[in-house]
């Protein structure tokens, strides 16, 4: 009986493996046969991000942002005259799952990748795209090493750039004498900005008087950190983390009667759309962000309107970055004049060199260009919240 069972199990295992292999085999033939007769007529663009789990908000924004852009692009003739097919895979904000997602997209026939949404999975996937020489542009993978490989470009600012830009902005606008910082020590994004900010702050006209941290496990009560900052007389508090925690910080600061200037980065964008958030708390909050949903230019108004119509909420910066990614791909593909018939590697090489010579007018910048190391060249806008809305700070 045992023997029979083991043979059966081995057989089942074998058939599963065969089934997978077979599926792939039919897939490739299905793709190869038309390729032999006539070239494929569509570009296949993949996206990766967390659409389940704790970081799902970001992945969903990216998924929706790309979808809106691709639909618009398809309605206007596609990439270089070819329609675009788009498929999004879930990575659960996990490096291993992201690699699985990448492999499943590869089986689907992906030629270009917009992803991944979060930094740590992005690093793992960038290693694989580099081995396959597939073009990758990440909307929001902000860790420095994400773009270490020549085939990977980025739409958002890198973490150090944000830290440096924030320190310089506070310095050049004489915003403060004493700066206090609260950061999330368990978050890559937050620690990345924090470290560069402190390094850049040396020799500036302000002094960092307190550096307080919290972790993902203790992100509801900030009174200890705020008391220390208040005790150190910080007149500006730098908050390099996401808006959901920042809302609590603002609320608790108000309760203890502490009213310094609060200064955030692009993760702060979205605070005004937070449910049940008292907008008066954010009065005077400054943030550096490449995108503001309240901007009045046509592009932003159209995008925000379309996003609200489809998903019933105001898009955040992740959605805007990923929307811009799709348009950057369109520009680069048209510049390089590649067709879907080329191999993945050829597309990558052509698009890679075209990326450095395009200038995109997008949601997150009026003229975004790229350096060959994959970093975008765009200026962050400093906005200040006045009467419950963004206003450009000067």
């Amino acid at each position, binding site marked *: *009986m*045992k*023997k*029979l069972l*083991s043979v059966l*199990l*081995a057989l089942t*295992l*074998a058939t*599963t*493996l*065969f089934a*997978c*292999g*077979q*599926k*792939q*085999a039919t*897939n490739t033939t299905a793709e190869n046969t038309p390729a032999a007769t006539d070239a494929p007529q569509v570009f296949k663009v993949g996206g990766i991000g967390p*659409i*389940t*789990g*704790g970081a799902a908000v970001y992945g969903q924004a990216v998924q929706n942002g790309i979808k809106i852009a691709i639909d618009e692009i398809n309605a206007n003739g596609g990439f270089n005259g070819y329609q675009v097919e788009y498929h*999004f895979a*879930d990575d*659960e*904000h*996990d*490096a*291993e*799952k992201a*690699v*699985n*997602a*990448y*492999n*499943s997209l*590869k*089986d689907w026939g992906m030629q270009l990748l917009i992803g991944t949404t979060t*930094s*740590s*999975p992005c*690093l*793992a996937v*960038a*290693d694989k795209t580099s081995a396959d020489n597939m073009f990758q542009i990440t909307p929001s993978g902000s*860790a420095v*090493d994400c773009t270490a490989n020549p085939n990977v470009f980025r739409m958002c600012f890198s973490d150090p750039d944000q830290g440096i830009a924030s320190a310089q902005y506070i310095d050049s606008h004489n915003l403060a004498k004493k700066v206090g910082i609260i950061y999330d*020590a*368990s*978050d*890559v994004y937050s*620690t*990345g900005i*924090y*470290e560069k900010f*402190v*390094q850049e702050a040396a020799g500036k006209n302000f002094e960092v008087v307190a550096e307080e941290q919290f*972790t993902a*496990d203790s992100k509801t009560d900030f009174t200890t950190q705020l008391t220390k900052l208040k005790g150190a007389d910080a007149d500006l508090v730098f908050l390099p983390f996401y808006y959901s925690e920042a809302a609590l910080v603002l609320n608790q600061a108000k309760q203890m009667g502490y009213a310094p200037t609060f200064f955030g980065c692009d993760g702060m964008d979205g605070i005004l759309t937070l449910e049940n958030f008292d907008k008066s708390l954010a009065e005077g909050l400054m943030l550096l962000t490449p995108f503001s949903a309240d901007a009045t230019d046509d592009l932003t108004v159209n995008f925000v309107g379309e996003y609200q119509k489809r998903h019933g909420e105001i898009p955040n910066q992740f959605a805007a970055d990923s929307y811009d990614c799709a348009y950057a791909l369109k520009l680069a593909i048209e510049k390089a004049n590649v067709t879907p018939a080329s191999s993945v590697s050829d597309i990558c090489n052509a698009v890679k060199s075209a990326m450095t010579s395009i200038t995109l007018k997008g949601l997150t910048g009026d003229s975004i260009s790229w350096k060959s190391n994959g970093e975008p060249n765009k200026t962050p806008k400093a906005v200040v919240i006045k009467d419950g809305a963004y206003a450009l700070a000067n």
Partner: protein
Amino acid sequence: MDYFKLKRQKKARYNLSIYLMIIIAYAIVMILSSQGKISSLLNGLLVPFCTYSILAVSLNLVVGISGELSLGHAGFMCVGAFTSAVFTRYMKFLGVEGLYLFIIAILIGAVTAGFAGLLIGIPVLRLKGDYLAIVTLAFGEIIKNIANAIYLGFDENGAHFSLKNTMALGLSDKGFVVIKGAQGITGTPHYSSFTAGVILLIIVVTIILNLVNSRTGRNIKALRDNLIAAESVGISATKYKLIAFTIASSMAGVAGVLYAHNLTTLTALPKNFGYNMSITILVFVVLGGMGRIRGSIIAAVILTLLPEMLRGLSDFRMLIYSIVLIVVMIFTSAPAMKQYMEVLKNRFPVIKNLKASVLKKMSKEGE
């Protein structure tokens, strides 16, 4: 006499079937991949299959064979992953790369995770049942949070360590930061392969099977089945439980090494080294059957494969996955289902006859 011999042979056949299963699966994959008939998704899953199989088999030693509920297994995986990755990353920084480093890394991972298991096991194994489960859970989380807080760098003056930030390391210009706190380790060399994973799995299975069928293993099982009776004949509860716990931790460390060298980035998230992962491993063990090595491996492979196979369902993927899990758990453990399987067996006399004939043959051989 005959009975014991038969039992021994049965055991030998069971053990053999595990190795056969692994080798057959390995051979099939190798043949398919040499013909390029294997999908990228499956190809990418081969190393995780081995990692999770090792984890499931090793946790089975604690939960199934030693009978202690541990919810912190992923913590030991974390120890193995981080210590070995620090070593290989530092070697890469020095410009040394090679597969022999991977073997050293495996040893480092196994030893450090085993040591962590020993340290934690000494106080923790004095507890029983729910208390033990909660304390192991806490230790697993502590390990994950420590890994998140460490900053470690090297320069010409040696190693620098801090719990604050990279600036506090005080590295010279030539310095190099290996662990950047929450950002973890990036750029770990890619040493893991399916072949290495299968070899490690076979070694782990061999160690466990030998242990289980040894005097030590019988003592461990005796403690599980009746603690008072076992202690009354002079079996030291602490010693044997600690042996099982330490060996299992050390194997989890090996799985961590395999995991760390399969991806270029290593961060301690709840998803990979936290509570979630410990529970996932426990699910493999429970679904595969307590104390069943072969079942653990099959469950680990199937449950790793399942969410990937369900990708076609997009948004409903994790929902369907959980439903499948619940259904499988209920069906495999329901008494009615077991009864039905018995009826099924009786209805197909071929199976019954086969069993009878095999038993007959074996008893003849025994004579």
